[in-house]
Structures are given as C-alpha cells and as structure tokens.
C-alpha cells in the first residue's frame, strides 16, 4: 500500500517537527506549507519530507487539494489527511487506513465522538460542533457523528473523484458532499483529538456557511 500523509500547514513551527517525526513511519509525508510566515517551511525541509509550498496563503482546503493532487499524480493507494498542530495521534493512522486497505470502503472519516476518551471542551461541543454536525447531516442526508474533523483517509478511487474547490474550512463539508455525490463507500472510525486551544470558533462557522452558499452559486 503506497500511503501518502498530507499535512496542510500554516504557521505551525512550534509543533511541526514533532508531528512530522511521529507520522513519518506510517507513509510518505507530503507537507503543504500554505504560505507560512514563520519557520514552518524550513523546519519541514530539514525533516526530509516532500514539501510543497504555496507562495501565498490560500487556506486549508486549498492546501489539502494541492497535497491530494501530488499524491494522486504519484500513484498513491491511500491518502491520509492529518493536522499539523499535533491534535491527532500518528499511531492511529493504521486504524484509519485499515478499512481502505481491506477494500471495505473508499473513504474513512475520523470521529472524535466515537471515542469516549475524548474530552471535547463543553462549550465548543454544545455551541459549535453539535450544531455543525446537525447542519451537515440534515443538509447532506448523512448520519455522521462528527463534522470538520481533519483526520481522514481516501483511497485512490476516492481521490480521483474528490477535488476540493472550497479553499478554506468549508472543504470538510464539501468532501462529505462529494462522497455522497459519487456514491463512495465511507465509514467513521474513532480518533483521539487533543485540544490545545479553542480551534475554529463561531465566526469561522458563519464563514463556512457563507462559503458553502456562494460556492453553490459560483459553479
């Protein structure tokens, strides 16, 4: 299994070296530096992984798509999306790609709510995540237990279908939408999410709604 681990990164110099070292044993790391203004790019280069650089910041969705395009071009069997801020656990990568390597599904989505050990901050859960999950499930007609979790895996077949056009955070909803549109087989797998900070706040949530709305009109 040719596994590519795509890590979008924007000003993550603090955690980056540790994150790369942790995921390296699990596949070919493709780090997409999304126009960072700190030392992220140099740190990544020194780690001896493939580093793609966006000259200017284009957003997380754009960075993921750049990494996906690279992996697709280089014949990846499976691509793992992994956050650069150290909130995911590298040792869970085998668990996330397992359903794909067994040929059961095309897409695996990490869910922080399937793992009872996760301490999701109460306010974030109540005000942001739960409404987002409800919105996503109602809008797209899916039954998922999590939304906007950056830990996921795509098979080559899924990669050929899923082209992210939402440059920023709305990409997470777009991916689910494309899974549905192309009738890809998918499954959720429990993953751990460690919280360093509040992450995406309420205003990001509103921006995602706006991006989704205009993304629909502007095809």
């Amino acid at each position, binding site marked *: 299994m040719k596994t590519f681990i795509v890590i979008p990164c924007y000003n993550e110099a603090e955690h980056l070296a540790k994150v790369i070292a942790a995921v390296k044993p699990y596949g070919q790391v493709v780090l997409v530096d999304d126009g960072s203004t700190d030392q992220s790019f140099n740190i990544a280069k020194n780690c001896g992984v*493939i580093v793609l650089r*966006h000259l200017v910041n*284009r957003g997380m969705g754009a960075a993921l*798509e*750049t990494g996906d395009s*690279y992996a697709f071009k280089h014949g990846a069997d499976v691509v793992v999306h992994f956050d650069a801020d150290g909130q995911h656990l590298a040792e869970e990568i085998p668990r996330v790609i397992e359903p794909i390597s067994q040929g059961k599904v095309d897409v695996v989505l990490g869910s922080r709510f399937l793992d009872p050990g996760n301490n999701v901050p109460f306010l974030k859960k109540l005000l942001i995540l739960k409404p987002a999950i409800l919105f996503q499930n109602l809008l797209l007609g899916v039954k998922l237990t999590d939304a906007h979790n950056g830990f996921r895996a795509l098979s080559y077949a899924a990669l050929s279908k899923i082209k992210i*056009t939402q440059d920023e955070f709305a990409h997470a909803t777009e991916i689910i939408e494309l899974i549905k549109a192309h009738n890809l087989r998918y499954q959720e797998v429990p993953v751990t999410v460690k919280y360093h900070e509040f992450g995406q706040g309420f205003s990001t949530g509103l921006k995602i709604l706006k991006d989704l709305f205009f993304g629909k009109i*502007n095809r």
Partner: protein
Amino acid sequence: MNYLPLQIIVSLFVLLVIFRLSRKFKDSILKTSEFIGWLVIWAVVLVAFWLPNTASYLALLVGIGRGVDLAVYSAILIIFYLIFRLYLKHDKQQQQITKIIRHLALKEEDEKKPQ
C-alpha cells in the same frame, strides 16, 4: 420649484462620465453591450433630473408615491445587484489564484526531482 443649479451640476457630471465611458469604449476596455448599458443608465439619470414628472409618472405606475422614492429604490436594487456580481467575480478570482498557486507549488517540486 427651481431645480436649475442641481440640474446643471448633474448634467455636467453625467457628461463627464459619458466622456470617460466613450474613451474606454474606444480603447476596447468596454464591450458594446456594456457601453450601451451604461449609456442607458446615465440617460435615465438625465431624464429623471430634467423631466422629474417622468419619474413621478413611472413611480405611480409601479405603486410608489414619489418619483424620488422610485429613484432611490431602484438605485439600491442596482447597487445590491452590482455588489452581488462583484462578490461572485471576486470569488472566481480567488479560485483562479489558488489554481495558479497550486500549479506553482507542484511545478517547483517536480523540477527538483531530476537533481
């Protein structure tokens, strides 16, 4: 009522705009359809200022009391429409920028390979 000073100021302004539009049209910056569209809009402004009764007549026709109100309502509608169009255009340009940035990122990596 004496509208004269305002009418002259507005007319001069409209003339200036039309002059600039025609220059842009000559330099092929504006398409014929766009040029005509803008001419019509500014002609309407001229008519509204020189023959205020026309606006009042049209206003009554669509059920609005005064000509001035009709002008304000239509102006707001047009402005919202233009903002909407601008927004979509902006969004499209953002997508194009992303495409270029992605292309450059992938090209840079590919060019490194042979060494």
